[in-house]
């Protein structure tokens, strides 16, 4: 029997809105879950998803993708790629899995909320597929690292991280809860899929896939390429919502939601992806600097998309462009210096050759960030290791939950952005994070940062040991320098030459 071409029946098949007879429209689509901002049902029917896929097509393609990724893994399990990989690369894997895998499950629930409560039929169809995508991403990114748990307990954090009070896990939870776990169907479409996934897909999955292939890690490369093709489909759920909101007088609301999510996503990129690309990935395998990647794939793309869809550049655009130059250097230095508090081994990435690369990509790096690393390097060379560890906590931002930091050295520009609300002083890292708080203080005001918890006596004893216990970091899991300080060998040799 001849079958119709997909586009001959797709529109009819997914036009599943009807006029409710036994309940009110608001009972079928409660505004707090649908997020429809008073826009009636029929207006949402103009939603036109750019990527159309049917369920049979989806199942066929996904089956092939899964078979591909799992067969690459099976074929390479005995190739000792992991054992022979650079320790910096192993840290990329650990950080990635811990921060992302469990959040994929959370994302599947957000997609499910769109699949049920979205008023646009096309959005519901896309989100049904997106929901299954995210379940797959959760499962595959827990299964792949599990292979390494018996060799390295830090890989256990792929599953464990989100159940702990480890600081990076708190930061990731705060951000993901805000942009999708606790949002309605419209907000999820704009904040998770449009703002976060469009950027994150490109940043974490496209950039890292290229680095993985360069590093010879075909298992990870095929895994994240497999995920990236899903993301590039369901990341398109949010875009078609924007013209509907703009046409119905809700441009300001759409703009605000996207601006919040994009700023919050940027902060996560700066601590997770920035160090991976510019410090952890072995020098010879780096394709682009984090800054180059951000400029090409995030800044340019977002600017174009926002304007094309009838929105404006976020008010903080100049702040973002400025931070791209330096924020991730500070996140990296912070993660490395407080290395016992993470579930991976940070790669310092500051050998003379790596510093030359950093100076080339970020002119002025040696005169700023390099000044701090000079002191650290000298301590390592002189064996003053206790001076390379912290004895206190960094003050973290009450929005992004990340250390408040900025450019050091003679160009010192670190500052606190305090804000008084209901008698409590909140500390922010930037005008962007403070602005997010001000948009809906009641949403954020009750949260305690790690420093707030410390001062409230929730971390006992009040020392590094107490903090590590609070964070769930056991011996064998706490981070240390990925290369056992080999990056300081050249400085050590220089030092010995001078002494002789």
């Amino acid at each position: 029997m001849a079958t119709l071409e997909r586009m001959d029946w797709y529109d009819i098949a997914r036009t599943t809105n009807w006029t409710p007879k036994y309940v009110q429209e608001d009972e079928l689509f409660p505004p707090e879950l649908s997020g429809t901002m008073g826009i009636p049902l029929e207006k949402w029917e103009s939603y036109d998803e750019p990527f159309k896929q049917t369920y049979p097509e989806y199942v066929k393609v996904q089956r092939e993708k899964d078979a591909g990724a799992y067969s690459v893994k099976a074929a390479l399990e005995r190739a000792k790629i992991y054992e022979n990989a650079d320790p910096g690369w192993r840290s990329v894997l650990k950080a990635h899995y811990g921060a992302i895998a469990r959040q994929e499950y959370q994302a599947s629930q957000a997609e499910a909320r769109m699949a049920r409560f979205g008023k646009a039929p096309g959005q519901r169809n896309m989100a049904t597929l997106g929901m299954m995508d995210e379940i797959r991403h959760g499962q595959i990114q827990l299964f792949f690292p599990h292979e390494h748990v018996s060799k390295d307990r830090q890989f256990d954090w792929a599953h464990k991280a989100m159940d702990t009070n480890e600081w990076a896990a708190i930061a990731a939870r705060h951000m993901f809860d805000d942009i999708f776990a606790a949002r309605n169907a419209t907000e999820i479409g704009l904040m998770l899929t449009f703002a976060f996934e469009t950027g994150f897909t490109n940043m974490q999955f496209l950039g890292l896939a290229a680095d993985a292939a360069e590093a010879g890690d075909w298992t990870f490369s095929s895994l994240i390429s497999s995920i990236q093709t899903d993301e590039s489909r369901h990341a398109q759920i949010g875009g078609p919502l924007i013209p509907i909101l703009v046409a119905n007088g809700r441009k300001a609301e759409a703009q605000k939601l996207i601006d919040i999510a994009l700023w919050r996503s940027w902060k996560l990129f700066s601590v997770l992806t920035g160090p991976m690309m510019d410090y952890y990935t072995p020098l010879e395998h780096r394709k682009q600097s984090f800054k180059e990647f951000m400029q090409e794939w995030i800044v340019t793309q977002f600017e174009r998309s926002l304007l094309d869809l009838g929105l404006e550049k976020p008010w903080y655009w100049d702040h973002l462009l400025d931070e791209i130059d330096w924020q991730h250097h500070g996140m990296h230095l912070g993660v490395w210096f407080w290395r016992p508090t993470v579930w991976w081994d940070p790669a310092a990435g500051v050998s003379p050759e790596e510093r030359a690369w950093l100076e080339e990509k970020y002119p002025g790096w040696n005169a700023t960030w390099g000044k701090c690393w000079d002191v650290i390097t000298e301590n390592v060379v002189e064996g003053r290791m206790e001076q390379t560890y912290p004895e206190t906590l960094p003050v973290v931002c009450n929005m992004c939950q990340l250390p408040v930091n900025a450019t050091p050295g003679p160009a010192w520009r670190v500052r606190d952005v305090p804000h008084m609300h209901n008698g409590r002083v909140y500390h922010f890292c930037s005008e962007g994070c403070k602005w997010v708080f001000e948009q809906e203080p009641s949403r954020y005001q009750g949260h305690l940062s790690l420093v707030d918890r410390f001062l409230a006596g929730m971390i006992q004893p009040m020392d590094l040991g107490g903090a590590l216990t609070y964070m769930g970091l056991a011996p064998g899991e706490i981070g240390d320098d990925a290369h056992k300080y080999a990056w300081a060998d050249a400085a050590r040799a220089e030092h010995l030459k001078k002494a002789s």
Partner: protein
Amino acid sequence: MALFPLTSNFEGDFVLQLVAVDTENTMDEVASAAAHHSVNRRVADRPGYGLRVRRQGSKDLIPRTMKVSESGLKPMECIEVIWEAPAAAR
């Protein structure tokens, strides 16, 4: 006498840090407590230089002998700890 947390922004360093002092500590002692977490860890020492404390955003240095309890500083307020050139430090 009571523990008093402050936010230290140390000149030349890259990050704000929690510094626990006492309400009876002088500004010189506060500066020294802040220096413990920055100098020779990520900030090179400057022999001969002194250290002074000021509120973030203010150009006015808080007198060296003033106690925390007399300074009007609030818990977790951000202080800037800055180097003072040898001539001025004398």
